């Protein structure tokens, strides 16, 4: 018999249960053991069979979660790739298409509205649709459709990643345009630039700073080095109507630009110990969780290819097939222009008449908020934006139908360097420094992409300015925004400086060549040459006796010696007379330093903090007073080469006149205080890699750990809230190819491969490059009955 107390307890329990379900009911189904939807993406050791409308395929994951996808034909391969990428990276894929399509706010609310407005105004999705109109019905288009079907098969039948459940939304169906949007995202990140507007802003607010942004940095460490055997590129003589030479004559200098960079180099068998070529590549992009790159191996009767691509794209972008290996770095070419107009009553002047901009109103859906309407305007040149207090129209080579996707597809199937070069003809953006080697030891360097020729009154002009759109200045002939361009006003592929069989060649985003024969970009586009100089120094030493090994190449990729430190440290040591005793003591640490940015180095810590602050101490007094933040500061290469008595070292806020020594000494005093305040012991206390997931839930982030390298070292790492560094390192060699990702190949937090390469990466270690299936398939695709 239940006592009165027992009945009271029973009622209490019922009330407690009701309370639990009212307060946290939605979390029960999410977090309960076994059945909780949060745990559905755990890598179960079972295998599944999936119907594939295009044919048979198998997916076998290796010990690092890298899939080998083997299919009986190309479309079956694309379908299986879609399924597999959705399994491993669906949330990342959805995030990218939302970003580029201007649909983030529908999932993330008001904080994403400004981003959506920008992406809607730019019309990236319209450009992707223009590309799809071109590809639809082609063999390549069929692959994109098969890939989309594979993604959708996963979405419809398998558990969604944890992030969707935490944010309580579901992904829409994947379409081929979404794949093209992923390509748009990486292209815009690497080649979309408002440098022209930045330059104009500086000119307006601080005119005398102009010389700090030269068209060409004063160095001779170009990619194509005329003094090196095999680097004897000459502009071809031209017989067609468009005068590339005229463009070249109008270009006086080239220069550099902040942003994302990369390293790659190729060494032919002539210089290696084994007689086989070796290729290395490490693209420097924002470090994210999961990583930007997705590694895979694709096998079909057409051939096999291993390497990395982007989730959402069914092709390997950098890697190796049975005959070739290749890698890329960003050229940094200027392929974005801005145009201003005379406006009157909402119309813009063009070709002598006032025209209405093409105007549409789009609705941005906002999760948990009011929908927002955005007006999208376009002129004949492109989308209208308001930036830096200017209303401008933007032209970017990605805002038209492109053949980038098809080019990437064709690169994978090239059997010879000649076929590879042919595939590059279609690679329109983002302009990339391709290096490639073949099994026979042949090498190739080609900065492929579309380079616009700007003209004013028929004369070719550089693109480092905001053009008068009303007067028709700087237009790109043959470019049709959101349409099908014929590219007549762009540099011929054959006229682009390149090297066939250079022996060895390296690229690190520096200026391609002194005289390319046309306008390619300025110092705001090309990187400082620090990394390039170091790579060439090491390659020259190792190729001198013709016995380069894979280990040599790995040592170069891991190299932490800073050429920037070599150049700046003498300036520090020259200023010790102006320093306090404690600052002088800190500076003396640099005297015997080997310039290596290693985590256990105290000198590296002192130098890094000093350099960071030194630029600010030099320029901030006048830049800040004119409303220009530190993002406007000139390049370190420019700072390095300022004379000791440059007026930029004078602090205009003081009565006296400061020199470089004064500023260097003042900066070192700050460094001493900073180190004391923060309790830093070595560089690794400061130089930590802290990679966050884009979904703001702490446990999805990778752990914060010390690492080596700096923005100026071959082993590239830029510490910060959004760290940048080697987003994928790989070395292809006959003696064993190796690679590493800054995290893991799976985007599923509960997978064993979510972050299993993180420590390898931060410690400069590698694991084998995927070379084929070993073991039983995890996923088997069987041809669906009735499928064609």
């Amino acid at each position, binding site marked *: 018999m*239940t006592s009165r*107390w*027992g*009945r*009271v*307890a*029973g*009622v*209490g*329990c*019922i009330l*407690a*249960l009701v309370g*639990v379900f009212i307060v*946290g009911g939605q*979390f*029960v*189904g*999410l*977090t*309960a*053991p*076994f*059945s*909780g939807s*949060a*745990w559905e993406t*755990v*890598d*179960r*050791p079972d295998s599944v069979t999936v119907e594939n409308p295009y044919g048979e395929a198998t997916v076998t994951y290796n010990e690092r979660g890298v899939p080998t996808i083997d299919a009986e034909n190309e479309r079956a391969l694309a379908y299986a790739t879609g399924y597999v990428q959705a399994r491993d990276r669906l949330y990342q894929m959805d995030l990218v298409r939302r970003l580029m399509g201007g649909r983030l706010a529908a999932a993330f609310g008001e904080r994403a509205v400004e981003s959506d407005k920008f992406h809607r105004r730019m019309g990236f999705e319209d450009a992707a649709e223009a590309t799809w109109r071109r590809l639809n019905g082609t063999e390549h288009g069929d692959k994109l459709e098969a890939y989309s079907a594979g993604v959708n098969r996963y979405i419809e039948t398998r558990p969604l990643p944890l992030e969707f459940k935490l944010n309580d939304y579901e992904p829409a169906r994947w379409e081929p345009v979404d794949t093209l949007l992923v390509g748009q995202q990486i292209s815009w990140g690497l080649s979309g630039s408002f440098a022209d507007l930045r330059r104009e802003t500086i000119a307006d607010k601080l005119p005398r700073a102009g010389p700090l942004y030269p068209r060409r940095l004063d160095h001779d460490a170009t990619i194509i080095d005329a003094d090196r055997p095999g680097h004897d590129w000459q502009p071809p003589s031209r017989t067609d109507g468009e005068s590339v030479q005229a463009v070249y004559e109008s270009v006086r200098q080239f220069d550099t630009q902040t942003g994302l960079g990369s390293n790659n180099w190729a060494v032919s068998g002539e210089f290696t110990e084994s007689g086989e070529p070796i290729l290395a590549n490490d693209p420097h992009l924002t470090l994210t969780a999961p990583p930007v790159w997705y590694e895979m191996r694709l096998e079909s009767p057409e051939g096999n290819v291993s390497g990395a691509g982007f989730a959402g794209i069914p092709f390997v972008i950098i890697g190796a097939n049975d005959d070739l290996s290749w890698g890329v770095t960003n050229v940094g070419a200027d392929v974005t222009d801005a145009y201003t107009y005379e406006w009157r009553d909402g119309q813009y002047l063009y070709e002598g008449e006032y025209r209405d901009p093409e105007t549409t109103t789009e609705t941005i859906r906002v999760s948990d908020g009011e929908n927002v309407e955005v007006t999208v305007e376009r002129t004949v040149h492109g989308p209208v934006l308001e930036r830096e207090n200017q209303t401008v129209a933007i032209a970017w080579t990605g805002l038209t139908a492109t053949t980038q996707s098809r080019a990437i597809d064709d690169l994978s199937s090239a059997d010879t360097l000649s076929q590879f070069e042919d595939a590059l003809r279609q690679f329109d953006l983002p302009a990339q420094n391709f290096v490639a080697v073949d099994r026979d030891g042949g090498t190739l360097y080609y900065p492929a992409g579309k380079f616009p020729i700007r003209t004013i009154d028929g004369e070719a002009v550089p693109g480092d300015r905001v053009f008068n759109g009303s007067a028709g200045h700087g237009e790109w002939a043959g470019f049709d925004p959101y349409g099908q361009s014929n590219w007549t006003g762009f540099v011929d592929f054959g006229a682009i400086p390149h090297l066939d069989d250079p022996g060895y060649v390296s690229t690190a985003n520096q200026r391609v060549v002194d005289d390319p024969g046309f306008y390619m970009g300025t110092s705001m586009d090309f990187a400082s040459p620090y990394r390039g100089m170091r790579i060439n120094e090491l390659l020259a030493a190792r190729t001198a006796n013709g016995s380069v090994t894979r280990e040599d190449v790995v040592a170069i990729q891991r190299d932490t010696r800073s050429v920037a430190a070599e150049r700046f440290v003498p300036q520090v040591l020259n200023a010790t007379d102006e320093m306090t005793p404690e600052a002088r003591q800190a500076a003396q640490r640099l005297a015997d330093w080997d310039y290596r940015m290693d985590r256990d180095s105290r000198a590296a810590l002192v130098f890094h903090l000093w350099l960071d602050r030194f630029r600010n101490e030099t320029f901030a007094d006048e830049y800040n007073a004119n409303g220009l933040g530190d993002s406007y500061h000139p390049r370190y290469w420019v700072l390095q080469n300022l004379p000791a008595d440059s007026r930029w070292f004078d602090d205009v806020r003081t009565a006296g006149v400061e020199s470089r020594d004064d500023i260097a000494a003042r900066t070192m005093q700050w460094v001493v205080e900073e180190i004391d305040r923060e309790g830093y012991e070595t560089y690794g206390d400061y130089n930590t890699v802290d990679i966050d997931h884009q979904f703001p*839930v*702490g*446990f999805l982030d990778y752990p914060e750990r010390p690492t080596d390298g700096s923005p100026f070292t071959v082993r590239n790492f830029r510490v910060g809230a959004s760290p940048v560094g080697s987003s994928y390192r790989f070395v292809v060699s006959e003696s064993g190819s190796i690679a590493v990702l800054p995290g893991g190949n799976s985007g599923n*937090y*509960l*997978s*064993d491969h*979510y972050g299993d390469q993180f420590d390898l990466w931060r410690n400069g270690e590698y694991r084998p490059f995927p070379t084929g299936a070993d073991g039983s398939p995890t996923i088997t695709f069987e041809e669906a009955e009735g499928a064609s």
Partner: protein
Amino acid sequence: MSTRGRVVAARDRVRVGDRAELAASVVFLVGLLASAVHWSGLLVGGALLGLVASSVRRAMLTGVYLGVSVLFVFGVSLVVVGALSAYLSTGVLLLASVGFSVGLPALAAGAVRGLT
């Protein structure tokens, strides 16, 4: 004896009779299996434990045992696939998972035992 009386007598035999431990073990296993299939198994298992428990206190205690056992078996399954460490790092999700696992069967058992 009325039908209700026979049911009550049978219930009491299960709760305090010679086979009380056996009955508790059987429903414990049923609850464990049900919990592995769906989260409502935590409630069902708890309710069954309440039905066979000799007191409210014992009912809630065995409910806690069930929840802990479910967590233990789930943990073992995560060890097998190398995901235990990730599970233990999920912060609020882990707290909710543990809380629901232990709380739901305990409260369900207490409610059933207290009112029957």
